[in-house]
């Protein structure tokens, strides 16, 4: 591993983000090649987090554009502050400004409401991190517009002229794959797929993010999650859920998993009624029962054997 990548990795770990080589390498390349990163992955694997961590590691501003259906250029780029414009016109009524003066006054910078994309382009001191979150939720027209902004980093406002980026922002796009993005947009980006974490990574995340968690509980929670993700559920729990659950176990002063407590706290990480029903019966016994005492076993083997029994349980329901 070369210095640069290690540097990024250390920088991100300092921000309490447990990362791996693939993430660090892609982040490093994005900076070196000045290309946006397109991050895809299941919900709750920490896609958005990467942008936040990058921003705080680089000590720069994070500008977030949350995409949704119907998001349009006015909301993403700029809007004029109409109430302020109208008030100013009222105030100027007695003055002798002619229409032209009046116009250039109220269509000036101080009446401009900068939305995320314009803010990213006009950042003063250093390049900000621009997070374009859930880009798959915007529609194709918006995607085309976005592509334009991401290629030129300049925008034109009819009343003000063309504004060019002083510093080219670092861009992170995330997508939940609800639809396929256009080839043009995908080609502009480096691609990063984030999977659910491995046991080791999840364990590291737990010990980093849940202060004071003991080794046994952390191991058991991580093992449990590895096995649960193998079961076909409506909503597979992500890392966010792992952390929520570990926190609730801590709040209940548990130092290891017990069936009863797990059943009571299932709602902390299984967010679908059918899934709760699937897991709460015999399945839970299989999962938790074999766990105490199995801490020293090889986790992969353990997961495999539990998964097989688990699938039978879930299927028979």
């Amino acid at each position, binding site marked *: *591993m*070369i*210095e*640069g*990548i290690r540097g990024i990795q250390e920088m991100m770990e300092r921000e309490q983000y447990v990362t791996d*080589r*693939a993430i660090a*390498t*892609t982040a*490093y*390349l994005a900076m*070196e*090649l000045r*290309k946006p*990163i*397109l991050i*895809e992955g299941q919900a709750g694997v920490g896609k958005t987090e990467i942008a936040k961590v990058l921003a705080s590691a680089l000590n720069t501003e994070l500008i977030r554009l949350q995409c949704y*259906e*119907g998001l*349009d250029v*006015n909301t993403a780029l700029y*809007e*004029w502050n*109409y109430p302020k*414009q*109208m008030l100013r*016109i*009222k105030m*100027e*009524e007695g003055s002798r400004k002619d*229409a032209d003066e*009046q*116009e250039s006054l*109220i269509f000036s910078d101080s009446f401009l409401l900068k939305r995320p994309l314009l803010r990213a382009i006009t950042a003063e001191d250093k390049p900000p991190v621009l997070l374009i979150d859930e880009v798959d939720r915007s*529609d194709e*027209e918006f995607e085309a517009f976005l592509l334009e902004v991401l290629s030129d980093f300049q925008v034109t406002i009819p009343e003000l002229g063309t504004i060019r980026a002083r510093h080219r922002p670092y861009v992170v796009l995330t997508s939940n*794959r*609800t*639809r*396929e993005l256009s*080839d043009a947009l*995908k*080609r502009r*980006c*480096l*691609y*990063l*797929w984030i999977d659910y974490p491995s046991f080791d990574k999840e364990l590291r995340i737990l010990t980093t993010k849940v202060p004071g968690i003991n080794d046994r509980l952390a191991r058991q929670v991580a093992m449990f999650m590895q096995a649960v993700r193998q079961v076909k559920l409506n909503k597979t729990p992500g890392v966010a859920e792992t952390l929520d659950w570990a926190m609730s176990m801590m709040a209940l002063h548990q130092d290891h998993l017990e069936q009863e407590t797990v059943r009571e706290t299932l709602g902390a990480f299984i967010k679908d009624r059918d899934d709760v029903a699937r897991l709460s019966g015999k399945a839970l016994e299989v999962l938790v029962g074999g766990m105490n005492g199995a801490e020293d076993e090889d986790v992969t083997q353990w997961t495999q054997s539990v998964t097989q029994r688990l699938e039978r349980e879930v299927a028979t329901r």
Partner: protein
Amino acid sequence: MDPVGNPAPRERSRYALKSRARYADLQRHVISFGRELRRRELLATSTETVDALRALECVDIGDREDVYTSLRSVFTSRLEDVPIFDQVFNQFWQRIAEVEQQPDNADDLPSEAGEAGDLEQSGEGEEQLRLTSPDAGEGAEEGEGDEEALPLYSPIEMLVNKDFSRFNADEMTEIARAVLVIAKRLATKESRRTRISTRSHLIDPRRTMRRNMKYGGTILELARKRRKIRKPRLVLICDVSRSMDTYSRFLLQFIHAMQNTLGKVESFVFSTTLTRVTPYFKNEDIQDALDRIAREVEDWSGGTRIGQSLQTFNERWARKLVDRHTIVLILSDGLDTGDAEILRAAMEVLDERAAKVIWLNPLLGSKDYRPLARGMSTALDHVDVFAPAHNLASLLDLSKHLAV
């Protein structure tokens, strides 16, 4: 050989600095790597290849993981690309490792392709690459478009060749009328986007301010906007297996009419395999279109494998064609000879992705029919509307289901 445990990490290993000949080799391999990926339908044109070479300059080329991750981030663009990439990468890595092992000039390495050979001789950097590869890349590919995506079958592979020669003219006009009614229904869905309008209750503040500057800012005229109308997309998947023989001609006319009235319509036919027929119906005479389909669709009037066909659809087309605004219309009798589990799984995926899944079943018109066919009953869980499609009346009835 496994060079992961290679010499100590080099600081910013600039491959080009080590040896010009080696850099040319590396270039050559990356180019042919990109070409191989493109052949397997990844987004890998010359732009990506240039990026890949730039990326490799930033990392340690002796470190397999670095090289793997860098190239993957450049050459893949969706999860489905990754396994293909992995396969091709293994071969590529072996070649790179050979280059790495080569003491000096590597002229005797087996040459990949003619174009790459040129590069090797001149041994120049990126500029050269930019000049040589585009013609092999985008230019040639862009033009192919739909043709390339459609598998072409030779006449010998056709199982049965059908003649669609006689069409009743009355039938045609009736269908056209039914489709118009349906199309009107579809074309009235409002979106959250807006467009300029003169009669609407929505005020457009940006344009209002602009327009009233001429009155010194007193608002005398209101500019208005109205919501855009969004036509939902439609994907039609029609069963043309033997059991559907009596209906498929009629349904294909329907598809033809839909496609020519409604813009965003994609159509497919299947019996044991799936074929995209959208291009056949484009502005073509219905007669010609049907002739071509009968000629070119491989197993017209063959057996039925709905599950496999829908699975193929999900894998190859769904992510491009189906989103939350898409209605998927399946026209089939559900008499499947394939694996019911595959059908169930495929329907589940489709249901998840689409706004609505509508299953039109011509057999539903007969009073005795119960959806007991194994395939049909498993699929029903994931169908939003299950309706008959045996005559025009039933198609007209369909229009009330076609709003997202």
